């Protein structure tokens, strides 16, 4: 399974993952994300998806869980740099508007939690 790169910049946590987010890796990703949620003092989780080329319903469910957890604790999830393929998948299940999506750094900055 590919690496999950985690970098903290002030109140931002940047996570990058390259590969597919599908049923076979989701359970492992959930476990690895626990260390991120355990880290203190961050307000915004930016998940960089530039290297993700395939997302199934398990992957969508993974991001729904991240989003729910962030919302419950006053934090925010931003899906960053989605490929057209992933946008299409999210659109098919009417979830594009559910997530905060940023295409570039300006979008991210505009959506950061103060």
């Amino acid at each position, binding site marked *: 399974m590919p690496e999950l790169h985690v970098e903290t910049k002030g109140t931002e946590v940047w996570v990058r993952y390259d590969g597919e987010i599908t*049923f*076979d890796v989701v359970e492992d990703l959930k476990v690895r994300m626990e260390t991120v949620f355990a880290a203190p003092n961050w307000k915004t989780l930016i998940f960089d998806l530039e290297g993700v080329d395939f997302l199934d*319903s398990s992957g969508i469910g*993974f991001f*729904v869980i991240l989003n729910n957890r962030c919302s419950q604790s006053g934090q925010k999830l931003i899906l960053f740099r989605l490929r057209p*393929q992933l946008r299409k998948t999210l659109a*098919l*299940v009417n979830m594009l508007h559910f997530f905060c999506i940023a295409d570039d750094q300006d979008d991210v900055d505009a959506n950061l939690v103060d």
Partner: protein
Amino acid sequence: MAQASAGLHEPVRVMVVDQDPVLRRLVRHALDARFVLSEAQDGFDALDAYLEERFDIVVIGERLGSCDARQVVEYIRGQANDSRTFIVVLFWDLSPAGEFALLHAGANDCLRLPFYREVFRARMEVGLRHIRMTQQLEQAYMRIEAQMRTVADLQKKLVPSLAQEVPGFRVRHLYQPSGLASGDYYDCLSLPSGGVRVVVADVSGHGARAAFIMAMVRTVVRAGTARGASIEYLLATTNTQLLETVGDESDFVTIFLADVDPALGRLRFASAGHCPGLLRVGTQVEPLAASTPMLGFFPLEFRVEERAFPPGSGLLLYTDGLYEWEMASGEQLGVDRFVALAAEAICEPTVYLDALMHRLEEAGEMPPVFTDDVTALWVETDPTWRSVVFRVEAAPAQVRQVVRQAVEWAAEMPPEMRDAVELAVVEACANVVRYAYGEGGGVLELRVAVAPGSLVRFQVVDYGRPFDPPERWGLPEETSSSGRGLFLIHTLMDRVHYGRMEGANVLTLEKRWEGACQNCM
């Protein structure tokens, strides 16, 4: 031409023909009010009147002018093709040979003149009884024929049209019942495996009884197949039903049942007393003989056999009516001669049953005159289809990997469709990994078939617990982390079908690419 009086209680119409007015008066006075009399003097005038208004009884004297009594009788029975009218000939002087000739020509009675009125009346009573009986028989026949037509109309609805194309197969059939209702049954049913179940059965005898038993066999086959029953189960159930209903009578059924599975390249079949099916693989033809006796006499155990059925293979099933007919030589065509001719016909590049009939005609030196019901069913896999089966442990990483391989194998589908199909197949396989097996795990089979330029079919097969597909597959709440898989499958694919067959869950996903691709990614 008018009809003779039809009702049993209507007056009986009588015509007397003779030039002698005394004779005509004698006849008139001998008849009571139940008879309505017309008179003619000349034989030809009498026939003109007969053609205008058919009579129930015609009384013919000896003096007819332009013709004689025998000519009148022969006209009525011959040219007019009338066997109902009761004909009495009156004569003064007639030899036994002359009387024989008249009776032989079709007269019902001959009476010497002068007659006693009571005797003549008694002869007319005989005529009356003859007419009433004929009318009763005709009405009974009409009732029976109406019932037979009802049976035949119902049976027509039971005979499949096979008009709908079965993807991946070429199916042709021939069906010629010998009467209104038939004891032959044929069918071609789609299976959850993506294959077809073909059946040809022949019930002994003809008519309503055979049609009734045929309907019973059809119900068992169709209902059982819809519930995923095996060939063995269908044969055993049909035999049990027959033993319960007609087991102590002479009725029986021969039947050939076969499952064609192109994904596995396999034919499974069993024949109970039926004439040999003909399997064509490449240019080789193998007769598939019956492994058990016919159904309906005693309990049986059934054995299913297997043969390879690679792409382009075909199977011909038929009933014995196709070879039990007399050739110009007077010999029966017979099964051996038929099998040889049929083997040639099904090795043609394109198989047409009309061409088979043409071969029969050539062999018999005459168009076949069938005396039995005739049925033939040809099924072949489309030789242009490619198929493959992947088998893997139903574990997440292995399954994801095999889906990649399967989609790669079907790479000829348009690129814009590929991601959509892959996503749907991933969703289907993920469901197997999550739900099909418990702790012990199990196998996932991914069957892939491609019809070049038109269709791709993925079949996700597992041997775990039965799947109960929901009737609705909408989207869940946005905050729900699951429940979108079935929605994606149904949205992305053109056809989704679940079936359980021989202990397996089979989910079939199909995508066509003629025209615009809906929801391609």
